[in-house]
Protein backbone atom coordinates (compact mmCIF):
# COMPACT_ATOMS: atom_id res chain seq x y z
CA UNK A 1 0.00 0.00 0.00
CA UNK A 2 1.46 3.33 -1.03
CA UNK A 3 1.67 6.36 1.19
CA UNK A 4 -0.87 9.08 0.43
CA UNK A 5 0.30 12.61 -0.18
CA UNK A 6 -2.38 15.26 -0.05
CA UNK A 7 -2.04 18.68 -1.60
CA UNK A 8 -4.14 21.72 -0.73
CA UNK A 9 -5.82 22.06 -4.12
CA UNK A 10 -6.84 18.38 -4.34
CA UNK A 11 -8.26 18.45 -0.81
CA UNK A 12 -10.12 21.66 -1.54
CA UNK A 13 -11.63 20.14 -4.69
CA UNK A 14 -12.67 16.99 -2.87
CA UNK A 15 -14.27 19.01 -0.06
CA UNK A 16 -16.18 21.16 -2.54
CA UNK A 17 -17.48 18.09 -4.36
CA UNK A 18 -18.57 16.40 -1.13
CA UNK A 19 -20.19 19.59 0.03
CA UNK A 20 -22.11 20.20 -3.18
CA UNK A 21 -23.38 16.69 -3.46
CA UNK A 22 -23.82 15.10 -0.01
CA UNK A 23 -23.88 17.96 2.45
CA UNK A 24 -26.33 19.91 0.27
CA UNK A 25 -28.52 16.81 0.21
CA UNK A 26 -28.83 17.11 3.99
CA UNK A 27 -26.40 14.54 5.43
CA UNK A 28 -24.77 15.46 8.76
CA UNK A 29 -21.19 14.51 8.32
CA UNK A 30 -18.92 13.05 5.66
CA UNK A 31 -15.48 11.63 6.37
CA UNK A 32 -12.97 10.59 3.78
CA UNK A 33 -10.48 8.15 5.32
CA UNK A 34 -7.74 5.80 4.16
CA UNK A 35 -7.49 2.08 4.86
CA UNK A 36 -4.97 2.63 7.64
CA UNK A 37 -7.66 4.60 9.51
CA UNK A 38 -6.38 8.15 8.91
CA UNK A 39 -8.84 10.98 8.33
CA UNK A 40 -8.14 12.55 4.94
CA UNK A 41 -10.97 15.11 5.02
CA UNK A 42 -14.11 15.84 6.98
CA UNK A 43 -17.13 17.83 5.81
CA UNK A 44 -20.53 18.87 7.05
CA UNK A 45 -21.57 19.69 10.56
CA UNK A 46 -18.51 19.78 12.70
CA UNK A 47 -19.91 17.89 15.65
CA UNK A 48 -17.65 18.38 18.63
CA UNK A 49 -18.99 15.22 20.23
CA UNK A 50 -17.99 13.10 17.25
CA UNK A 51 -14.73 11.25 17.86
CA UNK A 52 -13.53 11.17 14.28
CA UNK A 53 -10.22 9.45 14.99
CA UNK A 54 -11.90 6.47 16.64
CA UNK A 55 -14.61 6.38 14.02
CA UNK A 56 -12.04 6.32 11.22
CA UNK A 57 -9.99 3.56 12.87
CA UNK A 58 -13.06 1.42 13.48
CA UNK A 59 -14.45 2.04 10.00
CA UNK A 60 -11.17 1.02 8.38
CA UNK A 61 -11.05 -2.14 10.51
CA UNK A 62 -14.72 -2.87 9.85
CA UNK A 63 -14.21 -2.45 6.14
CA UNK A 64 -11.21 -4.75 6.25
CA UNK A 65 -13.17 -7.33 8.21
CA UNK A 66 -16.07 -7.32 5.79
CA UNK A 67 -13.68 -7.63 2.83
CA UNK A 68 -12.38 -10.79 4.46
CA UNK A 69 -15.95 -12.03 4.91
CA UNK A 70 -16.58 -11.29 1.24
CA UNK A 71 -13.60 -13.40 0.28
CA UNK A 72 -14.78 -16.25 2.51
CA UNK A 73 -18.11 -16.42 0.70
CA UNK A 74 -16.40 -16.06 -2.68
CA UNK A 75 -16.98 -12.38 -3.39
CA UNK A 76 -14.12 -10.08 -4.30
CA UNK A 77 -15.26 -7.36 -1.99
CA UNK A 78 -18.36 -5.55 -0.78
CA UNK A 79 -17.97 -2.11 -2.29
CA UNK A 80 -20.42 -0.55 0.14
CA UNK A 81 -21.73 -1.06 3.66
CA UNK A 82 -24.68 0.38 5.48
CA UNK A 83 -25.57 0.42 9.17
CA UNK A 84 -29.01 1.63 10.14
CA UNK A 85 -29.71 3.29 13.48
CA UNK A 86 -32.93 4.55 15.05
CA UNK A 87 -32.19 8.17 14.11
CA UNK A 88 -28.88 8.23 12.35
CA UNK A 89 -27.41 5.83 9.86
CA UNK A 90 -23.96 5.36 8.43
CA UNK A 91 -22.96 4.47 4.91
CA UNK A 92 -19.49 3.37 3.78
CA UNK A 93 -18.24 3.27 0.21
CA UNK A 94 -14.90 2.34 -1.24
CA UNK A 95 -13.10 5.05 -3.18
CA UNK A 96 -10.41 3.61 -5.40
CA UNK A 97 -8.27 1.10 -3.61
CA UNK A 98 -6.96 3.43 -0.95
CA UNK A 99 -9.87 5.36 0.52
CA UNK A 100 -13.27 4.97 2.16
CA UNK A 101 -16.07 7.54 2.17
CA UNK A 102 -18.18 7.55 5.35
CA UNK A 103 -21.55 9.31 5.28
CA UNK A 104 -23.61 9.90 8.41
CA UNK A 105 -27.20 10.96 7.88
CA UNK A 106 -30.52 11.21 9.70
CA UNK A 107 -33.86 9.63 8.79
CA UNK A 108 -34.91 12.74 6.85
CA UNK A 109 -32.48 11.76 4.09
CA UNK A 110 -33.25 8.67 2.04
CA UNK A 111 -30.74 5.89 1.59
CA UNK A 112 -31.49 5.92 -2.15
CA UNK A 113 -30.39 9.54 -2.44
CA UNK A 114 -27.21 8.88 -0.45
CA UNK A 115 -26.37 5.92 -2.66
CA UNK A 116 -26.93 7.90 -5.82
CA UNK A 117 -24.83 10.84 -4.67
CA UNK A 118 -22.06 8.62 -3.34
CA UNK A 119 -21.92 6.75 -6.64
CA UNK A 120 -21.47 10.02 -8.51
CA UNK A 121 -18.91 11.27 -6.03
CA UNK A 122 -16.83 8.12 -6.09
CA UNK A 123 -15.50 8.55 -9.59
CA UNK A 124 -14.98 12.29 -9.10
CA UNK A 125 -12.92 11.80 -5.97
CA UNK A 126 -10.97 9.00 -7.58
CA UNK A 127 -10.02 11.39 -10.36
CA UNK A 128 -9.04 14.17 -7.98
CA UNK A 129 -6.63 11.94 -6.07
CA UNK A 130 -5.54 9.95 -9.11
CA UNK A 131 -6.92 6.70 -7.67
CA UNK A 132 -8.72 5.74 -10.86
CA UNK A 133 -5.87 3.98 -12.62
Amino acid at each position, binding site marked *: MADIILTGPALEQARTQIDESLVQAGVHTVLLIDHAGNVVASCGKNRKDLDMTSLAALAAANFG*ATSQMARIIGEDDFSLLFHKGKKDSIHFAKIGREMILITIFGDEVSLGLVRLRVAELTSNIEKIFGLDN
Partner: protein
Amino acid sequence: MALIDLSKREVHCKIVYYGPGRCGKTTNLLYIYNSMNSNAKGKMLTIETKGDRTLFFDLLPLNLGKIKDFDIRIQLYTVPGQAIYEATRKLVLKGVDGLVFVADSLRVRRQKNIESLKDLKKNLVDYNLDIETLPVVLQYNKRDLAGSPIPTLSLEELEEDLNSDLGVKAFQAAATKGVGVFETLKDISKKTVRYVATKHLVKPK
Protein backbone atom coordinates in the same frame (compact mmCIF):
# COMPACT_ATOMS: atom_id res chain seq x y z
CA MET B 1 0.98 3.81 4.94
CA ALA B 2 1.72 7.30 6.07
CA LEU B 3 -0.60 10.14 5.23
CA ILE B 4 1.10 13.40 4.43
CA ASP B 5 -1.12 16.45 4.29
CA LEU B 6 0.85 19.23 2.60
CA SER B 7 -1.94 21.77 3.08
CA LYS B 8 -2.10 21.39 6.87
CA ARG B 9 1.55 20.38 7.07
CA GLU B 10 0.76 17.20 8.97
CA VAL B 11 2.31 13.75 8.84
CA HIS B 12 0.25 10.83 10.12
CA CYS B 13 2.07 7.58 10.90
CA LYS B 14 0.84 4.25 12.22
CA ILE B 15 2.90 2.34 14.77
CA VAL B 16 1.76 -1.15 15.75
CA TYR B 17 2.66 -2.96 18.99
CA TYR B 18 2.79 -6.62 18.05
CA GLY B 19 3.41 -9.67 20.21
CA PRO B 20 1.83 -12.72 21.80
CA GLY B 21 -1.30 -12.47 23.96
CA ARG B 22 -0.70 -11.17 27.51
CA CYS B 23 2.83 -9.87 26.83
CA GLY B 24 1.89 -6.32 27.86
CA LYS B 25 0.97 -4.39 24.69
CA THR B 26 -2.18 -2.83 26.14
CA THR B 27 -0.27 -2.07 29.34
CA ASN B 28 2.29 -0.08 27.30
CA LEU B 29 -0.44 2.03 25.70
CA LEU B 30 -2.25 2.58 28.99
CA TYR B 31 0.93 3.77 30.65
CA ILE B 32 1.60 6.19 27.79
CA TYR B 33 -1.99 7.38 27.90
CA ASN B 34 -1.91 7.99 31.64
CA SER B 35 1.43 9.82 31.56
CA MET B 36 0.85 12.17 28.65
CA ASN B 37 -0.40 15.69 28.72
CA SER B 38 -4.00 15.88 27.54
CA ASN B 39 -3.18 18.22 24.64
CA ALA B 40 -0.70 15.70 23.27
CA LYS B 41 -3.03 12.73 23.25
CA GLY B 42 -6.38 11.81 21.77
CA LYS B 43 -8.97 9.48 23.15
CA MET B 44 -7.79 5.95 23.81
CA LEU B 45 -9.96 3.39 22.15
CA THR B 46 -9.97 -0.20 23.32
CA ILE B 47 -12.18 -2.98 22.08
CA GLU B 48 -12.30 -5.72 24.62
CA THR B 49 -13.75 -9.17 24.81
CA LYS B 50 -14.84 -10.76 28.05
CA GLY B 51 -12.09 -10.35 30.56
CA ASP B 52 -9.22 -8.07 29.70
CA ARG B 53 -8.19 -9.43 26.34
CA THR B 54 -8.00 -7.25 23.28
CA LEU B 55 -10.49 -8.37 20.67
CA PHE B 56 -9.61 -6.16 17.76
CA PHE B 57 -7.14 -3.44 18.68
CA ASP B 58 -6.35 -0.61 21.05
CA LEU B 59 -5.73 2.79 19.55
CA LEU B 60 -3.98 5.76 21.08
CA PRO B 61 -3.51 8.88 18.92
CA LEU B 62 -0.56 11.09 19.92
CA ASN B 63 0.63 14.48 18.83
CA LEU B 64 4.42 14.57 18.91
CA GLY B 65 4.97 18.20 18.04
CA LYS B 66 6.81 19.57 15.05
CA ILE B 67 9.66 18.23 12.98
CA LYS B 68 10.88 20.43 10.13
CA ASP B 69 7.71 22.47 10.21
CA PHE B 70 5.44 19.43 10.02
CA ASP B 71 3.05 18.41 12.79
CA ILE B 72 3.71 14.79 13.64
CA ARG B 73 0.64 12.73 14.47
CA ILE B 74 1.17 9.14 15.53
CA GLN B 75 -1.45 6.45 15.93
CA LEU B 76 -0.40 3.66 18.27
CA TYR B 77 -2.21 0.38 17.71
CA THR B 78 -1.99 -2.97 19.46
CA VAL B 79 -3.04 -6.29 17.99
CA PRO B 80 -4.98 -9.09 19.66
CA GLY B 81 -2.33 -11.65 20.53
CA GLN B 82 -4.21 -14.91 20.78
CA ALA B 83 -3.89 -17.27 17.87
CA ILE B 84 -7.62 -17.33 17.07
CA TYR B 85 -7.61 -13.66 16.18
CA GLU B 86 -5.28 -14.12 13.27
CA ALA B 87 -7.51 -12.36 10.75
CA THR B 88 -8.05 -9.26 12.87
CA ARG B 89 -4.38 -9.13 13.79
CA LYS B 90 -3.50 -8.95 10.15
CA LEU B 91 -6.04 -6.20 9.48
CA VAL B 92 -4.47 -3.97 12.11
CA LEU B 93 -1.12 -4.27 10.36
CA LYS B 94 -2.55 -2.71 7.23
CA GLY B 95 -0.69 0.48 6.43
CA VAL B 96 1.83 0.11 9.28
CA ASP B 97 4.81 2.50 9.24
CA GLY B 98 6.68 1.28 12.32
CA LEU B 99 6.64 -1.74 14.63
CA VAL B 100 7.32 -2.57 18.25
CA PHE B 101 7.56 -6.28 18.91
CA VAL B 102 6.80 -6.86 22.58
CA ALA B 103 8.16 -10.13 23.96
CA ASP B 104 7.14 -11.76 27.22
CA SER B 105 10.01 -12.58 29.60
CA LEU B 106 8.06 -15.41 31.22
CA ARG B 107 9.80 -18.66 30.41
CA VAL B 108 6.47 -20.40 29.75
CA ARG B 109 5.87 -17.96 26.90
CA ARG B 110 9.11 -18.67 25.09
CA GLN B 111 7.48 -20.55 22.22
CA LYS B 112 4.64 -18.02 21.98
CA ASN B 113 7.17 -15.20 21.45
CA ILE B 114 8.88 -17.08 18.66
CA GLU B 115 5.59 -18.02 16.98
CA SER B 116 4.28 -14.48 17.18
CA LEU B 117 7.39 -13.06 15.52
CA LYS B 118 7.08 -15.64 12.77
CA ASP B 119 3.42 -14.74 12.33
CA LEU B 120 4.37 -11.06 12.09
CA LYS B 121 6.94 -11.72 9.38
CA LYS B 122 4.46 -13.76 7.39
CA ASN B 123 1.74 -11.12 7.64
CA LEU B 124 4.16 -8.41 6.52
CA VAL B 125 5.15 -10.43 3.48
CA ASP B 126 1.45 -10.70 2.59
CA TYR B 127 1.30 -6.89 2.54
CA ASN B 128 4.53 -6.68 0.51
CA LEU B 129 6.35 -5.22 3.48
CA ASP B 130 9.76 -6.29 4.67
CA ILE B 131 10.73 -6.45 8.31
CA GLU B 132 14.30 -5.63 7.26
CA THR B 133 13.38 -2.24 5.83
CA LEU B 134 10.51 -1.18 8.12
CA PRO B 135 11.46 0.56 11.37
CA VAL B 136 11.29 -2.11 14.10
CA VAL B 137 12.33 -2.23 17.74
CA LEU B 138 12.04 -5.02 20.27
CA GLN B 139 10.81 -4.70 23.82
CA TYR B 140 11.57 -7.41 26.36
CA ASN B 141 8.77 -6.87 28.84
CA LYS B 142 8.15 -8.05 32.41
CA ARG B 143 11.83 -7.69 33.35
CA ASP B 144 10.60 -6.95 36.88
CA LEU B 145 9.97 -10.67 37.21
CA ALA B 146 13.61 -11.59 36.58
CA GLY B 147 15.02 -12.50 39.94
CA SER B 148 11.58 -13.41 41.31
CA PRO B 149 10.67 -17.08 41.89
CA ILE B 150 8.75 -17.11 38.59
CA PRO B 151 10.94 -18.65 35.85
CA THR B 152 11.95 -16.04 33.29
CA LEU B 153 14.06 -15.94 30.16
CA SER B 154 17.49 -14.37 30.31
CA LEU B 155 18.32 -11.47 28.02
CA GLU B 156 20.72 -13.72 26.14
CA GLU B 157 17.94 -16.22 25.49
CA LEU B 158 15.56 -13.51 24.29
CA GLU B 159 18.22 -12.06 22.00
CA GLU B 160 19.03 -15.49 20.65
CA ASP B 161 15.35 -16.39 20.05
CA LEU B 162 14.12 -13.12 18.61
CA ASN B 163 16.93 -10.80 17.59
CA SER B 164 19.63 -12.95 16.04
CA ASP B 165 18.29 -12.37 12.51
CA LEU B 166 16.80 -8.93 13.03
CA GLY B 167 19.65 -7.29 14.90
CA VAL B 168 17.54 -4.31 15.97
CA LYS B 169 17.57 -2.24 19.12
CA ALA B 170 15.98 -4.02 22.09
CA PHE B 171 14.60 -2.33 25.21
CA GLN B 172 14.10 -3.92 28.60
CA ALA B 173 10.80 -2.98 30.13
CA ALA B 174 8.42 -3.45 33.01
CA ALA B 175 5.35 -1.91 31.46
CA THR B 176 3.15 -2.10 34.55
CA LYS B 177 5.65 0.19 36.31
CA GLY B 178 6.36 2.22 33.19
CA VAL B 179 9.99 1.15 33.00
CA GLY B 180 11.25 1.29 29.41
CA VAL B 181 7.88 2.31 27.99
CA PHE B 182 8.82 5.82 26.88
CA GLU B 183 12.31 4.74 25.82
CA THR B 184 10.67 2.28 23.43
CA LEU B 185 8.12 4.81 22.19
CA LYS B 186 10.69 7.56 21.63
CA ASP B 187 13.00 5.33 19.66
CA ILE B 188 10.34 3.83 17.39
CA SER B 189 8.72 7.23 16.81
CA LYS B 190 12.03 8.75 15.83
CA LYS B 191 12.83 5.88 13.47
CA THR B 192 9.36 5.88 11.94
CA VAL B 193 9.24 9.62 11.32
CA ARG B 194 12.73 9.51 9.83
CA TYR B 195 11.69 6.60 7.59
CA VAL B 196 8.59 8.38 6.31
CA ALA B 197 10.40 11.70 5.96
CA THR B 198 13.29 10.33 3.94
CA LYS B 199 10.80 8.70 1.61
CA HIS B 200 8.78 11.86 0.95
CA LEU B 201 9.85 15.07 2.56
CA VAL B 202 13.59 15.27 2.22
CA LYS B 203 14.43 16.28 -1.30
CA PRO B 204 17.65 14.67 -2.54
CA LYS B 205 20.29 17.36 -3.08
